[in-house]
């Protein structure tokens, strides 16, 4: 009997071992006029204005269009529903000339009324949405004025430089949703139970089928306005399908099984894919670094440390530049990249990603990984091991000991924490690592401020003003000391001023200087000590034509075709 079992086990192992060795098979993706991709989760709504998660935004990304969109190559706004625009001398009135001959998927003409209606929906107090606060200028909503069916004026209280980067929100059809906005039922419109043909946009694709937890299917909009250089109709592909695959491992298996045209591999899959590129008929492109940031930050909020007039010593350490610099010198970013990203990453220096070429400040000198320098800085700050127990004490004799947290279950952040803990222990700092459940972490960051050090990350876009909530001292995401009435330090006041000036400056070249200055201040004062950025890759079938992925999105996705 034992022999039988051993044989059976061998058979299973052999079968599993041959996984992927299956030769060729028929590539069903190759025939047909259809692009198949995967997404990690179900959309929560088909109403683009109500979406608060990337899956929902992505799900109708090709169905709706804004006035402008980001060109991922130039990283500048390019015309979509607005064919051109200009602003007056003061920069407070912008005139958008809308593209003529554009129709909604149901045949109704697209006009300036639709744009005015969309603005109205954005600023409606009954409609919670993430566009509203971005478009509030000096605390006031923008006003619109329809000049003629293809011209609309947008007026704001003061010049607003981020306008073109912020005004790309999806335009909605007034003839279909106008009544709902009046009735106050707008927030219940276009939920995921809506029949797909009722979701009407102007975009290159119409939604034709949604099967929850399975797929989203789109068909070409035959009357789409965009043409290629030769005057040919766009989009080139008749269909698009997005498979909903909630597990990343399964997504990878599906890509290996030739069920997907494109896939964003995780670092550990890259070498495997590279080896098998030929067999799988794929190309593996390095598309760039993460656009967001990943950092360690220390709590500088007296609300947590000052009780009954007595300040906890930690407040003094965490606001001490010497302490922050010592930490900055103790980050072994090479090991971090090796251990978390399998070598595919770069040390991060600035809060703005180098991929954001327009605003990234390349002149910042990185803090080198140098434990001796860190020790010297701690000594200078009078943190010494006074009792010989291996842990440094401050001048008052309090041992340097604090908690380091991050959200539990995020493997990258957990590994970063363990590397930091190791190095900080060498410096004579005692760290208690404590991963936190996400809701607990949020509670600590926004309600009771009961934390010491935290590894956090944020996604980032091209528009630097989008981080205002984080950078401004009065912002609720100004984590190290949120919601300040007046800036607590001169450098926070300076950042506030630069942010305000940057938002008002319409000359792009002058505008950049404000954000360079902010990066400089952040780099000097170290409220967020930057860690690493992952190198992103995209694997795609080599027979896809004009598929140009970037970290900012796919460049001109209308042009993608399949080489027969």
């Amino acid at each position, binding site marked *: 009997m034992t022999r039988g*079992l051993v044989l059976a086990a061998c058979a299973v192992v052999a079968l599993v071992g041959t*996984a992927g060795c299956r030769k060729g098979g028929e590539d069903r993706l190759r025939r047909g006029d259809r692009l198949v991709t995967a997404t990690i989760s179900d959309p929560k709504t088909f109403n683009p204005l109500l979406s608060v998660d990337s899956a929902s935004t992505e799900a109708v990304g090709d169905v709706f269009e804004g006035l402008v969109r980001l060109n991922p190559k130039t990283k500048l706004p390019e015309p979509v529903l607005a064919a051109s625009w200009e602003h007056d001398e003061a920069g407070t009135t912008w005139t958008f000339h809308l593209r003529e001959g554009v129709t909604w998927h149901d045949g109704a003409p697209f006009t300036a009324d639709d744009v005015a209606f969309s603005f109205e929906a954005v600023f409606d107090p009954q409609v919670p949405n993430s566009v*509203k606060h*971005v478009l509030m200028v000096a605390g006031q909503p923008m006003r619109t004025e329809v000049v003629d069916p293809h011209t609309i004026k947008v007026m704001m209280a003061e010049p607003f430089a981020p306008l073109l980067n912020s005004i790309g929100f999806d335009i909605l059809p007034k003839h279909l949703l106008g009544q709902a906005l009046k009735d106050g039922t707008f927030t*219940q419109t276009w939920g*995921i139970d809506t029949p797909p043909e009722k979701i009407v946009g102007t975009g290159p694709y119409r939604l034709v089928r949604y099967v929850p937890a399975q797929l989203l299917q789109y068909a070409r909009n035959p009357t789409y306005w965009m043409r290629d250089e030769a005057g040919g109709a766009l989009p080139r592909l008749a269909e698009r399908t997005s498979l909903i695959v909630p597990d990343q491992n399964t997504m990878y*298996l599906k890509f290996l099984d030739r069920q997907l045209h494109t896939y964003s591999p995780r670092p550990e899959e890259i070498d495997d894919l590279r080896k098998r590129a030929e067999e799988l008929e794929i190309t593996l492109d390095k598309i760039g670094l993460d656009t967001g940031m990943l950092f360690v930050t220390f709590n500088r909020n007296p609300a947590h440390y000052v009780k009954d007039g007595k300040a906890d010593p930690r407040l003094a350490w965490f606001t001490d530049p010497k302490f922050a610099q010592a930490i900055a010198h103790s980050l072994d970013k090479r090991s971090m990249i090796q251990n978390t990203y399998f070598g595919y990453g770069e040390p991060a220096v600035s809060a703005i990603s180098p991929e954001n070429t327009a605003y990234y400040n390349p002149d910042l000198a990185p803090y080198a990984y140098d434990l001796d320098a860190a020790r010297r800085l701690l000594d200078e700050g009078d943190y010494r091991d006074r009792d010989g127990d291996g842990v440094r004490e401050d001048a008052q004799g309090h041992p340097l000991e604090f908690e380091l947290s991050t959200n539990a279950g995020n493997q990258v952040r957990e590994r970063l924490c363990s590397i930091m803990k190791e190095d900080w222990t060498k410096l004579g700092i005692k760290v208690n690592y404590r991963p936190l459940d996400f809701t*607990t972490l*949020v509670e600590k*960051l926004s309600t009771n401020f009961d934390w010491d050090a935290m590894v956090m990350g944020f996604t980032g876009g091209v528009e630097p003003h989008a981080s205002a909530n984080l950078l401004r001292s009065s912002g609720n995401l100004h984590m190290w000391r949120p919601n300040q009435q007046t800036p607590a330090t001169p450098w926070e006041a300076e950042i506030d001023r630069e942010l305000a000036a940057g938002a008002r400056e319409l000359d792009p070249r002058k505008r950049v200087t404000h954000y360079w200055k902010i990066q400089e201040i952040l780099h000097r004062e170290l409220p967020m000590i930057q860690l690493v950025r992952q190198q992103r890759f995209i694997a795609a079938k080599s027979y896809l034509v004009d598929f140009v992925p970037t970290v900012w999105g796919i460049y001109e996705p209308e042009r993608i075709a399949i080489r027969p």
Partner: protein
Amino acid sequence: MARFVLLRMAQMVPLLIGITFLSFVVVDLAPGDFFDTLSMNPSISPDMIREMKQEFGYGQPLPVRYGRWLWRVAHLDLGMSIAYRVGVLDLIESRAANTVVLAVASMTFSWALAIPIGIVVALRRGTLLDRSLSFVAFFGMSVPSFFLAFLLMYLALATGWFPVGGTTSLDYPILSPMEKIGDRLAHLVLPVIVLGTGGMASLMRLMRSQLLEIQSADYVRTARAKGVPEWIVVSKHILRNALNPFVTLAGYELGTLLGGAALVEAVMNLQGLGTLMLDAVRSLDLYLVMGSVLMSSVLLLLGNLLADVALTLVDPRIDFSHLEAVR
């Protein structure tokens, strides 16, 4: 009998109120709420979160909110999911069919295999067959289902015998009706094996031990001594008497019909309620969680009731009429 059923139905109401109230309190006591994730998103302002909280009735005291929910439920309105802004019933409905298909198929698989195998191993107790099948059963009970799922998916990838994940293939809408059925069945095979294995293994062990116990009962020995043919002994005396726990179990399984299997659904990319509900619990989408709690409780209680009724039919020794007499 009718009175007994009515009585039990009436008892369900306070029980359901108790269950849902406790769940409501537990979700409420859990640290944070649905809006926490949103508050860490730089593109979402605190004002927006305030507006949303107001929209969904947050900020009122717990008994008021529970009372309102209960009132709506009494009118067959399970409320709206916060994440989806869609009625909870509609959300559940959109995935229920496939969940039921999956659950029924895997239950059929496990019962259809477990019972005959259980009988065979019990009758051949101690033989090589018994020991090897028992080994398989223990393996089936102990292997984590998601691991088995990955194992089988690798197998599917390596051999191409079965589709790798999903409920239907891409071209499903353009297939002929027969091909559609075939496509569905092909996609069902691996999930059913994964979901049915654990249940099959424990059912088989239960069947085996039941039979072994009854085999040594006096009436079985008497029957054999009387010279009753073996197949009648087994079918009439042993099996009939071994049935009771299985009737009860079947009732319980009704309660899990709409429960879904979140992990396996996620790994095998199946359409089902499990992932929806797991996400709801994780993100503290209150009314969606409550909807699922209510649904499973009702099914469980109904399943229990059905099992009890069925027991009186199967086993004449069980009689609930005395309960009525006591009242």
